[in-house]
């Protein structure tokens, strides 16, 4: 069934979009990720204009994280204070992101920046996850106990000023890296149409040493509100949020996520991380191939003014 999208101004097959939402939702439920980094490229490759894809996925991420936040809220696994400070940074980053998005669109380099960023970030994070999960699987096979984290272990981040105590996370750190981290994720999320959970979670664990029990809930909570802000900024700035596309993706996504989450419970953590790493690398590679191979068509057009601009 074809459905005309009011903002993208093209008809799409609603079942295909629903299916994409469902498939990405399944993977996001399986791996405990937002899935934006999969959904945005999928939409772009299927012919939705990149600006509409990015802006609309931010809305979809709001729905998928809201769904998960409900669960973590009930378990009280969210550090509200930490999340709020991250969020402040996130909103700031998101605002800068929307401005940059429009500038890049005007000079015709948006697609390039999106592709390059995907290659860089997905490549880096994917490789890190791949090494980490392979090492973890080997260690499990050889039966060696993983190295326990020493209490009070410090890195350079803990030497920064403006320290604040986060009771829930049992942390006493400077707000600078917290706001900075929030801003970077908010910025990337807005420009790339991703929630950034797969970057936020490792950063919170390895850089700030937030306890793992708190980390996912807190990260989701901050993503929820950063992406909500990003949606509003996109709606006001680029005017490319397609509510019909977003709703279709959301409904597919939240349903898929339930099945994914159920299946995820039967898999081991390190196996899941290995699969996720391969998935992340595959998406990154897809963008790299597009950048490196001779394009099928050297020319492209973009409407700048008048009808449909």
């Amino acid at each position: 069934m074809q459905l005309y999208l009011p903002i993208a101004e093209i008809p799409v097959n609603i079942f295909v979009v629903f299916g994409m939402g469902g498939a990405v939702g399944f993977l996001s439920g399986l791996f405990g990720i937002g899935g934006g980094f999969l959904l945005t490229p999928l939409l772009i490759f299927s012919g939705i204009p990149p600006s509409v894809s990015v802006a609309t996925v931010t809305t979809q991420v709001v729905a998928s994280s809201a769904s998960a936040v409900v669960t973590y809220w009930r378990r009280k696994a969210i550090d509200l204070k930490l999340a709020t400070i991250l969020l402040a940074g996130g909103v700031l980053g998101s605002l800068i992101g929307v401005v940059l998005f429009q500038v890049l669109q005007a000079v015709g380099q948006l697609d390039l920046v999106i592709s390059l960023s995907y290659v860089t970030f997905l490549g880096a994070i994917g490789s890190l996850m791949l090494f980490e999960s392979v090492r973890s699987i080997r260690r499990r096979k050889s039966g060696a106990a993983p190295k326990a984290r020493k209490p009070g272990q410090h890195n350079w981040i803990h030497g920064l000023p403006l320290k604040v105590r986060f009771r829930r996370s049992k942390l006493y750190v400077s707000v600078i890296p917290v706001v900075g981290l929030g801003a970077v994720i908010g910025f990337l999320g807005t420009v790339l149409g991703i929630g950034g959970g797969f970057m936020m979670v490792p950063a919170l664990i390895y850089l700030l040493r937030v306890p793992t029990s708190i980390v996912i809930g807190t990260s989701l909570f901050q993503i929820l509100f950063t992406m909500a802000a990003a949606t509003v900024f996109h709606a006001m700035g680029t005017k490319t949020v397609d509510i019909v596309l977003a709703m279709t993706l959301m409904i597919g996504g939240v349903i898929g996520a339930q099945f994914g989450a159920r299946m995820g419970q039967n898999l081991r953590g390190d196996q899941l991380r290995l699969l996720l790493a391969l998935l992340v690398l595959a998406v990154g590679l897809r963008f790299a191939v597009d950048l490196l191979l001779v394009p099928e068509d050297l020319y492209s057009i973009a409407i700048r003014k008048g009808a449909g601009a």
Partner: protein
Amino acid sequence: MIRRALLLAAMLLTVCGATRAQSPYELVTALSSDVISIQSNFTGTEIVIFGQAHDIERQPNNPSGYDLAIVVEGPPQDITTRRKGRFLGVWVNREAERFQHVPSFYAVASTIDIGAMADRTLLDELGIGLNHINLAVSGVSNVPLADRDDFRRAFIRLREEMGLYSEQETSIQFLTDTMFRTNIPLPANIPVGQYKVKSFLFHHGKLVSRTEETLAVAKIGFEQITFQLAQNYPLFYGLLAVSLAIFTGWLAGVIFRRD
């Protein structure tokens, strides 16, 4: 379809016969509809253009020297055409050329090969045929002079691939010696706005008569409300999108509660 067309054309004749003085070479045209509505089930449509050319003889083999061209033109746009080049091993957009006030949609139908209809200057002036559209460029451009034609050609080709530009030579059918009709397909991705439908009657390479009609392409109902909301009340639209998302997420979280 043909019967309906004939009926419409006949009606048209009576109306026109009453209102217009019959003079040689007079051209009369009418559209099957003045409004194209875009709703959620819109997947493209077509517009039928009917008409009559008075006092022309024996078509379509064209011994009389009469030729017809019909142009459907969408509201103007400024469009940037870019060309990729290799930069540090990566393919990036390099040169860009901005075409100003080009039609967002352009379809031309004609009785014969457009080039044979009139001389180049006249076709350029009237903008008949894909090779004769006025593609004005902005002053600022980093395209070398020698490559400008490549950009024009690429622009037209890309628009053709999108279904927004088309040229259908010999697609005007004559129902009788003087009555004609043609179908212009309007694809699903047509831009909204005011369209012009221009018809030209040539005789031995000279323009002897022309008509112009307007056609409105507009979103209606839900599509229009959504679009208007997004354009005129972006803050409200953004908040609405967020509320819908949070509600959907929350609802799913409650429905599929696992603990």
